[in-house]
């Protein structure tokens, strides 16, 4: 059991191995481990976030579905209303068109009647003048008796 140079040799060896471990072993290993830790942490975080996202998306989808259903119902409702309205409008238009046509026809008829009456009246006046001429055998100034004749025609 002698203390000798081995003591110094062991100290130098110690420093050499510590230096080697310090430079080439420890940083590499710890770096890898920390990287993995980070990876796992992010992975877990992302999984959690994805879960939350999924829940949110599901809720959103349900909401949208509900909304869409409501919208569809609304649209159908509106369409129905509009259809009724169009039908009503068409009915109304048809009715007014019919009325207009009827009125026009009536007016034409009236016109025709009036024209016929007028013609008749002139003819009657002519006839009565001709008759009176013949009866009286005198020349009646048509112009002088126009008023009277017209009165007669209006009485017809």
């Amino acid at each position: 059991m002698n203390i000798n140079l081995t003591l110094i040799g062991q100290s130098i060896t110690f420093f050499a191995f510590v230096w080697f471990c310090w430079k080439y072993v420890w940083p590499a290993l710890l770096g890898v481990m920390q990287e993995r830790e980070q990876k796992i942490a992010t992975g877990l975080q992302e999984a959690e976030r994805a879960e939350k996202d999924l829940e949110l998306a599901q809720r959103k989808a349900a909401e949208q579905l509900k909304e869409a259903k409501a919208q569809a119902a609304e649209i159908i409702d509106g369409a129905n209303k509009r259809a009724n309205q169009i039908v009503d409008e068409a009915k109304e238009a048809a009715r007014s068109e019919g009325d207009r046509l009827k009125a026009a026809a009536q007016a034409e008829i009236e016109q025709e009647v009036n024209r016929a009456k007028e013609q008749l009246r002139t003819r009657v006046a002519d006839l009565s003048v001709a008759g009176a001429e013949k009866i009286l055998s005198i020349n009646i100034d048509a112009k002088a008796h126009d008023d009277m004749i017209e009165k007669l025609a209006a009485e017809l």
Partner: protein
Amino acid sequence: MAAEQTATGYIQHHLQNLAYGKLPAGYTRTDGTVLSESTWTIAHSSQEAADMGFWAVHLDTLGWSIGLGLIFCFLFARAAKKATPGVPSGFQSFVEVIVDFIDKTVKDTFPHRNSMVAPMALTIFVWVFLMNLMDLIPVDWLPLAFAHGTSALTGADPHHVYFKVVPTTDLNATLGMALAVFALMIFFSVKEKGLMGFVKELTLHPFHSGKWYVDIFLIPFNFLLEAVSLIAKPVSLGLRLFGNLYAGEMIFILIAIVFGVGVLGFIGASFLQMGWAIFHILVITLQAFVFMVLTTVYMAMAHDREEEHAHDQ
């Protein structure tokens, strides 16, 4: 070998390192030859090894400790090179368990910023553990193989070839590491606190009055106490590891002697050997851990500035 030697000789043979050193001119060697001039040679007896003085080297201690350290470096460097942040493979996860354990232990005891302390703790733990682990190899295997191998190669008497397998049972090895730790303690103390800070820590502590004319007379007492506690640290660090392993080795040697004492002795020694070996697994791990933790604690003390601040106020 035990059959040809006395028990004392057997034990002494096991406790002698393979020493390589210088013998002076005119020295009478164990085999009776007288050296005509001073020679560098391998000691053939404990007496020769002792006479070599300080300028001798224990080839077995250094060989095994460097070899085991290289194994540690090689395995861990390879694991570090191959390491991926993905799913770790078998050996990588084993290494990572150790690294993680060391990292946690160091973080618990060493609150300062120094990137060297944790790798040093890892080196100490694994290296000392490997050196201690050699203790579990049956005491005669490697020395016998080495002695007969050398005698076959060089014709040397196998009885005069010494070979100690466990480096940590050599006081040189444990004190060598403790001295290295001590050097680092002083280095970091001076680096962190400055030379004056370190001197103050040694002289103005633990007795301190705040009045300079009183403090001056307290300096010798303080210095005596602090110097003793400072020097006691590496000494106890080295001796603790050495003592535990040396004692363990001694028990293994004693059990090995019992193997030769008849059938009953053989059976009894088998049980003793097994029991002690199992218990020793605990001891070698614990001692490696203790050496590591104490080194880390000493490093933390070297970095600690608390006391200095207390003095300043």
